[in-house]
């Protein structure tokens, strides 16, 4: 094996001679330059392979003396990983910069080589002073390399960097010399052994000073203004090395000196790191400049890695143990690859403003890369940070570090805000120009993308509980295949996905038991049916199928998840897939963002809950143990329920839903509404069936939740009546419908749950139907505003029947299945005696009539618009599933026992009391009975009679022409005012006053505003003045000193 | 004896340092800074470190000052022509 010292020999030798070689031609020097970088990669790669294969850590003694008598280098697993990463970065960034290298003096190559070598040294050396030398090599080479562009911004940023770094090196020297004197050596490992921290104030102070030197180089908040300037101004290829590579070296330096730190100092580092993470992500909210934004994110991520690492060591996890590797290492490598990739992309696009990145849309590969990096930074599966974060929460929860968890999740959420906002902006922007990507600049990005994916999959195999993740392997393979096959026409992909999903459903469903089977039908059978409308689309529909499959993978994963890791992974896959489906809608971008943020917020609540669960059940991931926990039950319950309620869109957490469901594409709306919302319910069922009646003091949590359910019914329905947009109306109606679901569950009785499930099933059927029918109408008339429609009954009769059946089922009047829900509700209200909620529910139910009426009245009745005279019925692929759902509703209405009876049977397992008594399809409870088929027939007969009478008596109706203005004399100022259906329920708005104000939206808007203004206030710290930054550094050190040493 | 030498040299160095900072003329400031290094190299001899003394004298007070002067010269030239 090649001695690792050859990394330095090669770099230095080539560096020294490169000027001479250059005299023979730039080609010669370039060749040697890349050959050396490649050789450095090869050496570290070869060591990594050997070490993974079980080789011993290599010690290299320079000058042939053993430490502490000479400087030694070390090549262990960590070193091999870090040097390989850094050298790869060097090679790729070097390639990226080839054009600049060609255009400028040979010195640029020399400096670049020295930069990379310096970082290698930071990683490999075990000598304190040698560490300083390599630190200086790296920084001085960086300072000089910054001069590859010499505009005023770059220069002033570089100078600020030099000053800050100068202070750091002075501190480092002072610390080092004292530590040398106190311990008698410079070899770091022996130093840690020899040093007696308690011996004097000076010893502790020396360690502190040394630590501060390294911490300053790691850019802690708020002593990091200089770093932000560097990230913003310096060439992307160089900045990629600074942000990823130099930070890697400094993190490794921190890792090395950790044995010198006592508990207080470890906690200090943890505090600094996590504060930096939260603060810089907060400030990132206000940032528009792309590279500066990446800078904020970088600083935050480095803070996170350092903070989490210190925290783990503080909690007693061995420094080079598996947990540290998995969590801190995972977070680090994730940031390393993603950030390098993003900075490279920034250079390729060369757009300062984040809003101008739309050009990426013309380059699907790079758009994919961008998406992958963003998701990796936020920590979604299948990226390394997802597993790192998962494991981190489990570990910290085990050690009761909930404050730390809370802060980290807050920071992550803030980061998600600006990153997803950015992604959304790209996806919605109009592309005016094309970008050209050269091979040398494109390749690094592609390699980084593959690396981040590969590392994610690797993490998935080493995280504790990894074995169980095999359930996702095949679906993920399919998703990957769909990304590759995305060039195929839509019908091919649609058929393929329907077949595969159908087959999977066929295989999976019979094995599911109880409520899982029921949800399996909703998720998967529903899913397959709702894929049929896909045939109506033309072209390729790029990016639809991978994410649709991802969403269904998540949903299926929920059904079969046996442990919390599977469950959470499935949950996040589902969220991610659905986000990308929703965002496809033309005006859906902001709504997709709020969907993602609420989902992430909910997921983090859930994650904390799962962490707590992990800690109280003896560090076991098994989901089945949820029913046997005895400690912290209520908190776990609340955290998990909050997570599910965000998906269920309960009042207060609902504001993402109307936009997300309303603006989504024709077939996506029914998917996310009819199917996806049930995932939240599924979660509730899982938790509530395990933890039955948690209390806080004397208050039953479920009682509180029942009120939430009732209010949701009322509020959702109330808001639905004011909508002019047909799809939004349906969306708000979903909020209300799921309020019933929540209410039913919180009753915690047999009948309550049966009610809830009936509602869920019903909602699944009629909401899919309604969204398809209305979607079909919108497909044809190209508007969602109801006041622009009218009289469509003649042009779209099937859609009309769909909507008619849908609203009958929805409003809960006989004869259709909705009535079953209502009937059960009244039964259960009587049973439980919750009168007040009952009143709210009944009023809410009445409100539903109002908006149901509008759907028929405004869209299908009245006068046909002039421009709609030639519209056709909705495309066949959209109609077919409607017919299926119509029949399903009919069937469910006629034979409710066929469905509800088996449901009742398994509910007995949880609630043995108060089951329904079925006799030949007629349900009997203590309060009455209900015969589905009978009701359907009677109502049918009555309807036919009335209808026939109407036909008979109304033969003489006079038709009024379109332009027969019988009530003239007033000219409407706006076109929509001519429509009788416009603002139909305005009088209700007036009457209800306070009740119809959007409190929830105001609250969340206010919160967002608060965060943004705080961010804007804090970032004013960064005045741009180098001296001020210096003051920050000094004050920072003093404050930390006061905290760490004063107390 | 050495203590007195150190004290005297130290006092001069501190004075020179303050001078180097407050002095308006950049040229004098640079020379004062060079003087500090030169005096420091004397202290190194007191501290029995002749190698350091030589280096400090040659690099610290010699070359650094020269580099400063060249830089000043360049800036001044810029001033005239720019």
């Amino acid at each position, binding site marked *: 094996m090649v001695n690792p010292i050859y990394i330095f020999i090669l770099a230095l030798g080539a560096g020294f001679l490169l000027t001479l070689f250059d005299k023979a031609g730039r080609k010669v020097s370039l060749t040697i330059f890349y050959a050396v970088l490649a050789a450095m990669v090869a050496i570290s790669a070869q060591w990594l392979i050997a070490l993974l294969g079980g080789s011993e850590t290599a010690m290299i003694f320079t000058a042939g003396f053993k430490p502490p008598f000479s400087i030694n280098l070390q090549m262990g697993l960590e070193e091999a990983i870090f040097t390989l990463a850094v050298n790869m970065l060097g090679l790729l960034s070097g390639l990226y910069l080839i054009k600049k290298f060609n255009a400028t003096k040979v010195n640029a190559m020399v400096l670049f080589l020295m930069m990379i070598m310096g970082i290698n040294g930071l990683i490999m050396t075990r000598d304190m002073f040698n560490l300083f030398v390599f630190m200086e090599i790296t920084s001085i080479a960086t300072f000089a390399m910054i001069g590859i562009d010499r505009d005023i911004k770059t220069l002033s940023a570089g100078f600020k960097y030099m000053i800050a770094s100068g202070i750091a090196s002075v501190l480092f020297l002072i610390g080092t010399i004292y530590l040398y004197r106190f311990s008698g050596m410079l070899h770091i490992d022996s130093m840690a052994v020899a040093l007696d921290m308690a011996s004097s104030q000076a010893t502790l102070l020396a360690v502190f000073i040394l630590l501060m030197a390294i911490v300053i180089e790691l850019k802690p908040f708020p002593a990091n203004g200089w770093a932000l300037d560097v990230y913003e101004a310096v060439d992307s290829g160089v900045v990629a090395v600074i942000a990823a590579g130099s930070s890697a070296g400094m993190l490794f330096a921190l890792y090395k000196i950790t044995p010198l730190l006592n508990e207080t100092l470890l906690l200090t580092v943890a505090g600094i790191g996590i504060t930096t993470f939260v603060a810089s992500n907060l400030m990132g909210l206000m940032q528009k400049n792309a590279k500066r934004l990446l800078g904020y994110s970088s600083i935050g991520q480095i803070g996170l890695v350092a903070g989490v690492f210190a925290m783990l060591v503080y909690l007693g996890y061995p420094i080079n143990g598996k947990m540290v590797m998995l969590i801190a290492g995972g977070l680090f490598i994730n940031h390393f690859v993603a950030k390098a990739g993003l900075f490279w992309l920034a250079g390729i696009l060369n757009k300062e403003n984040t809003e101008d990145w739309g050009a990426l849309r013309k380059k699907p590969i790079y758009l994919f890369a961008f998406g992958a990096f963003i998701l990796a930074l936020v920590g979604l599966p299948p990226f390394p940070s997802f597993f790192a974060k998962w494991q981190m929460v489990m570990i910290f929860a085990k050690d009761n570090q909930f404050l730390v968890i809370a802060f980290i999740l807050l920071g992550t959420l803030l980061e998600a805000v600006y990153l997803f906002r950015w992604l959304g902006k790209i996806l919605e922007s109009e592309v005016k120009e094309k970008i050209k990507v050269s091979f040398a600049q494109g390749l690094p990005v592609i390699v980084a993308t593959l690396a981040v994916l590969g590392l994610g999959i690797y993490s998935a195999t080493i995280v504790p509980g990894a074995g169980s993740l095999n359930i996702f392997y095949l679906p993920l393979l399919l998703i990957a295949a769909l990304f590759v096959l995305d060039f195929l026409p839509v019908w091919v992909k649609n058929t393929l996905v329907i077949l595969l999903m159908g087959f999977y459903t066929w295989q999976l469903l019979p094995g599911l038991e109880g409520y899982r089977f029921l949800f399996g039908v909703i998720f998967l059978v529903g899913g397959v049916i709702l894929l049929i409308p896909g045939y109506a689309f033309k072209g390729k529909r790029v990016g639809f199928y991978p994410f649709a499959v991802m969403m269904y993978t998540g949903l299926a994963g929920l059904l079969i998840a046996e442990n919390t890791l599977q469950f959470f992974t499935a949950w996040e896959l589902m969220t991610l897939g659905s986000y990308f489906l929703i965002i496809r809608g033309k005006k859906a971008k902001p709504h997709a963002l709020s969907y993602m943020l609420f989902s992430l917020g909910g997921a983090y609540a859930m994650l904390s809950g799962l962490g707590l669960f992990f800690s109280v059940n003896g560090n076991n991931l098994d989901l089945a143990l949820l029913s046997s926990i005895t400690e912290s039950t209520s908190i776990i319950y609340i955290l998990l329920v909050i997570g599910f309620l965000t998906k269920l869109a309960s009042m207060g957490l609902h504001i993402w839903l109307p936009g997300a469901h309303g603006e989504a594409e024709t077939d996506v709306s029914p998917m996310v509404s009819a199917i996806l919302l049930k995932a939240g319910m599924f979660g509730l069922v899982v938790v509530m069936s395990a933890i039955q009646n948690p209390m806080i003091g004397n208050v039953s949590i479920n009682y509180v939740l029942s009120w939430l359910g009732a209010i949701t019914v009322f509020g959702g329905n109330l808001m639905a009546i004011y909508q002019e947009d047909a799809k939004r109306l349906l969306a708000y109606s979903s909020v209300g419908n799921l309020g019933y679901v929540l209410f039913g569950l919180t009753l915690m009785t047999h009948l309550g749950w049966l009610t809830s499930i009936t509602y869920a099933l019903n909602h699944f059927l009629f909401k899919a139907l309604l969204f398809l029918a209305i979607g079909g109408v919108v497909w044809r008339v190209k508007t969602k505003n109801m006041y622009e429609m009218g009289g469509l009954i003649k042009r779209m009769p099937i859609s009309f029947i769909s909507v008619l059946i849908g609203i009958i089922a929805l409003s809960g009047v006989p004869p259709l299945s909705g009535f079953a829900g209502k009937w059960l509700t009244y039964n259960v209200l009587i049973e439980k005696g919750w009168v007040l909620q009952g009143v709210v529910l009944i009023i809410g139910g009445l409100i539903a009539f109002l908006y149901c009426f509008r759907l028929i009245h405004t869209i299908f009745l009245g006068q046909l618009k002039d421009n709609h005279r030639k519209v056709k019925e909705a495309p066949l692929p959209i109609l077919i599933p409607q017919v299926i759902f119509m029949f399903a509703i009919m069937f469910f209405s006629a034979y409710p026992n066929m469905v509800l009876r088996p449901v009742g049977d398994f509910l007995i397992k949880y609630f043995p009391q108060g089951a329904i008594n079925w006799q030949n399809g007629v349900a009997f409870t203590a309060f009455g009975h209900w015969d589905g088929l009978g009701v359907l027939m009677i109502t049918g007969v009555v309807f036919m009679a009335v209808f026939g009478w109407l036909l008979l008596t109304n033969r003489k109706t006079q038709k009024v022409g379109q332009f027969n203005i019988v009530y003239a004399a007033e000219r409407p100022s706006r076109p929509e005012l001519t429509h009788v259906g416009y603002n139909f329920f305005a009088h209700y708005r007036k009457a209800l006053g306070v009740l119809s104000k959007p409190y929830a939206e105001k609250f969340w808007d206010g919160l967002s505003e608060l965060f943004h203004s705080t961010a804007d206030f804090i970032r004013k710290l960064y005045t741009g003045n180098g001296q001020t930054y210096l003051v920050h550094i000094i004050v920072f050190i003093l404050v930390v000193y006061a905290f760490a040493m004063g107390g | 004896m050495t203590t007195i030498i150190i004290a005297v040299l130290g006092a001069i160095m501190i004075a020179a340092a303050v001078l*180097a900072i407050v002095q308006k003329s950049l040229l004098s400031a640079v020379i004062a800074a060079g003087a500090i290094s030169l005096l420091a190299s004397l202290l190194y001899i007191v501290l029995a470190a002749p190698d350091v003394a030589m280096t400090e004298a040659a690099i610290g007070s010699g070359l650094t000052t020269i580099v400063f002067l060249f830089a000043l010269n360049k800036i001044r030239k810029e001033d005239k022509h720019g």
Partner: protein
Amino acid sequence: MTLITILGLVLIMIGLWGMLTQKNIIKIIIGFSIMDTGVHLIMVSIGYLKDRTAPIIDSAVDQANAVNTVVDPIPSALVLTAIVIGLAVTALMLSYAIKLYEKKGTLDINEFKELKW
């Protein structure tokens, strides 16, 4: 040699004071180099042992008893390196200063605030 250590600290503080208060970039660099000198002084003073001679084995030093008569050679070696590095940093800072001046015609650090927030 506590006295020299203190002297070193004083120089560091003066240098830092210069870096924090002087507007002229050249002055800031001078402050930095004074600070550096202070650090070097501290480093050498740490290696000094009372009444001992330079670590050179010549006729004046008995090799057998050298352990008890010479000062620590390591800090000297380190300071040597530090001095050279200091020069390197100073030279680079000065080239920044030259370039900055070329671009803006001023050396006032307050003028270079293009990047902020």
